[in-house]
């Protein structure tokens, strides 16, 4: 079943299409949820919650953009919503972290290695980093989504990038490009 067929049949409330939707996109969406939640158990809950929102809003998808991006956005906002419920502290600075050398090494295009670095970022940094660098949101959009100021978003991104550089050094990442 192609992506277009999945969308059309889901809009017609075809149960098999929904099942196919879950089968095809779950690994990618799970990856998004893990990046935000930092914990597989929470991520599974958020994946399930994301799919319920996708089911209920499938009629609103107008094919103006990539379907996958639309799914990712729903997953990201679902995770953010949950994190906001927990009143996650976004405007904070991490001052105490161990950047001592690690025995692990990987290259920049090593998927697991890069994601390990992202997951290792403190949650406030990880949120802004994910939203800005990976999802492509602007600081203005991030500020609105997270109820923070734009300047806070910029500051946290700067700190996140600095920490990413430190982590790249820690894991002796090889630049292959």
């Amino acid at each position, binding site marked *: 079943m192609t992506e277009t067929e999945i969308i059309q049949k889901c809009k017609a*409330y075809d*149960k098999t299409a*929904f*099942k196919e939707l*879950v*089968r095809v996109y*779950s*690994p*990618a969406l*799970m*990856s998004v949820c*893990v*990046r935000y939640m*930092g914990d*597989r158990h929470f*991520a*599974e809950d958020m*994946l*399930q919650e994301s*799919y*319920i929102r996708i*089911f*209920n809003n*499938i009629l609103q998808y107008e094919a103006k953009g990539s379907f996958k991006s639309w799914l*990712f956005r729903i997953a990201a906002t679902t995770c953010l919503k949950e*994190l*906001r419920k*927990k*009143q*996650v*502290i*976004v*405007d*904070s*600075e*991490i*001052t*105490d*972290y161990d950047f001592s050398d690690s025995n692990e090494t990987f290259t*920049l*295009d090593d*998927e697991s290695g*890069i*994601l390990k670095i*992202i997951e290792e970022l*403190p*949650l406030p940094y990880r949120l802004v980093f*994910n939203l800005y*660098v*990976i999802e*492509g949101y602007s600081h203005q959009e991030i500020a609105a989504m*997270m*109820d*923070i100021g734009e300047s806070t978003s910029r500051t946290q991104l700067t700190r996140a990038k600095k920490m*990413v550089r430190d982590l790249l050094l820690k894991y002796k990442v090889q630049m292959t*490009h």
Partner: protein
Amino acid sequence: MEQDKYIRQIAEQHETPVDFEQLWGNLEPHVPQKKRRRPVFIWFWTIGIALVSLGLWFMFDNQKTNPMASNTQPNEVVSNNSLPKSSNNVPEFTNLINEVSQTINQNKSQTLNSQNNVIEAENKIKNEAPIRINQTKKLNTQSNNILSENTISPNTQKSDIAFETKNVETENNNKTAFITPIASQVHPNITNDILIVEDENRANEVVHFLPIISTQIFRENRFQSENIKVASKKNYNIRLQVGAGFFTLQHKTQNNASVENSQFLHAEQPLEYLTAGASTDIKLSHRWYLQSGLRYSRYTTRLTNEYNDYTSSTKQGVTEIIIDESGFASNVQGSVNGTTTTNTKSKWHSYYHSVDVPITIRYLLANTHKHKIFIDGGAIFQVWAGSEGGFLSSNGQLQKYDFANNPYRPDRFGYSGGIAWEWNLTRRGTLATGLSYDWRSMERSEGGLNIKTSISSYRFNLGYRINF
């Protein structure tokens, strides 16, 4: 930047294995079904439309007038002359009959014109709206004399001095059109002793800005977080709402004796009921909400009053024409005592205004993706009330009043309840409709008697809630 690009590509392409069967098992119950129109919403609209129609029917039906007619012509003829002798001159008699008829018609015409002039003058003085006048005339004059046996028959013509009956019907919304009955001549045919007036109070809705800020610090064990600031989240909403419906009135006297069968109950009739206001609600729990705001209400009533004026008068003129045996006719001058009856029907609109603060607890009865149904109930606290219009006094007269001399003392407390349906049209906008019942009361004193009026109102609401 290049690093960002690579990281983005890697992250987007990365996939994490998932236990599909377990996931689908959890998701399958949430797969949406084909949408079908829920009968509850159809019933909701049906009931709403029916109530509005009923209200409109009440409003327009009450505007019908009951024509009133009264006929009163007690006549008394006093003849000044005695009957002359009879005559045998028949031809002259015929001519005389014609003359008599002309005289009578002339008198009738004069009488009628005179009455019209009086009525028109009264109307001008009272500054009334156009009055419809139905006039009937009746000649009824009798001679007190006894004719001799030789009198040619018919030898007597009855005089035709008329006394009219006027039916006056007015309908006024303006204070200046108030009709004051002629005190000395009034014979009120309204037997009610208890006056009634309407009051109206409406409720509104309130806005609460009570952001729920709870602080729960999420700290990862690997890091020590310092310089912590809490990101707070505030949700506000405001609902603008209008409503329309109808209401009923109940009157009780001081000792709780019902005043049923009093004409007053029929004199003041409830018309339309309108509200407008703004409110907000805050979520107390998953299903419970607190709603409050400010609401303006207006109740309109119409009071119908009828009364008769009986005006005695004496008219001078020819009361008899006597024809003697020779055919000679002579007019008998005299006076006729009669009564002119004027029936006046007045209609008076009263307006009862109120500004209220309703405080309502709402319970979420049903919830779907886009629709919510609530039942609610609570109290109405009156902030301000005023009225203008008229009421029927114990002597049957219509008394007007305005805001300054409003005789009503509204109770500050009432209650309300209802059902509401909210339809999420957009992310920020919600259409809100519902049916509500309100109860409130007010009191008026007259001659040591306290009259308590309860208002039970039913309305259909339509509003729009904005979330921000």
